[in-house]
């Protein structure tokens, strides 16, 4: 495959090979998500297993009181009299 690692291939043959494999990956993702019966394509079957593993949520989750605690902190921060939105805040520069 040509080109830097984060770009799509530019050569027509490489591009065609990329598209074929990409379609295989996407078909597996769709079929796994929609719980279709597994078909007879070995490539799709393998990608379905990959897709199933990728759809499993990480073990760590937000604590049950997370939203409440953050909302309280936000209310406190907002109540500060001299607060202004800093231009370097992550939301402003992201």
């Amino acid at each position, binding site marked *: 495959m040509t080109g830097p690692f984060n770009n799509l291939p530019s050569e027509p043959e490489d591009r065609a090979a990329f598209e074929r494999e990409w379609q295989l990956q996407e078909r597996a993702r769709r079929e796994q998500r929609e719980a279709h019966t597994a078909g007879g394509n070995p490539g799709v079957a*393998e990608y379905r*297993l990959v*897709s199933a593993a*990728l759809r499993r949520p990480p073990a760590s989750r937000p604590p049950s009181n997370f939203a409440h605690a953050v909302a309280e902190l936000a209310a406190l921060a907002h109540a500060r009299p001299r607060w202004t939105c800093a231009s370097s805040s992550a939301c402003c520069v992201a």
Partner: protein
Amino acid sequence: MSQTTRLEEDRALVAAVQAGTPGAFERLVRQYQGLCWHVVQRLVRNPEDVRELCQDTFLPVHQCLHQYRGDSPLSGWVGQVAYSMGKRHLERKRIPLAEALHEDGPSPAELVPDAFDLEATVAGDELDRHLHAAIEALPPLQRTLLTLYHLDELPIGEIATITSLAENTIKSHLFRSRKLLRAALVTHMGVAA
């Protein structure tokens, strides 16, 4: 849910927060904390850091909510701040965000002679552990992109908004990471057989 309905709900939620409606911001956090957690957790991993960075994500979101124009999903905005927080954390720790993946592994499909009932026959705990270890071994950026695409089911366009990467770059990362995971799977099945 259609994109229009989603945007209307986002606008209504933001308006409620800005109007000081009790519980509105908590509702917003509850709605997007999962996405935020996924983004940060995939980048950072340490549970304490994840919690702190997620908290640090929602505070500026609250402070800058007046800047939300309502023309794109709030998930993209929250995800963007979460991604930015996680990325800065990695930079501070001098942990590389992305690395090139090498695809030259064993040829995949040919190594499995009969994969008709592959999912039913080999989806055991051991295989599952192996795949998860392979996912965890990916660089932070690739882990995050895969999670946003497969678990959170975000379209590539929205992931581009969150990460500020070009759509083709995201597609390329997804492609190569999935190909690598498939190769790891096939190698493991070949060894286990």
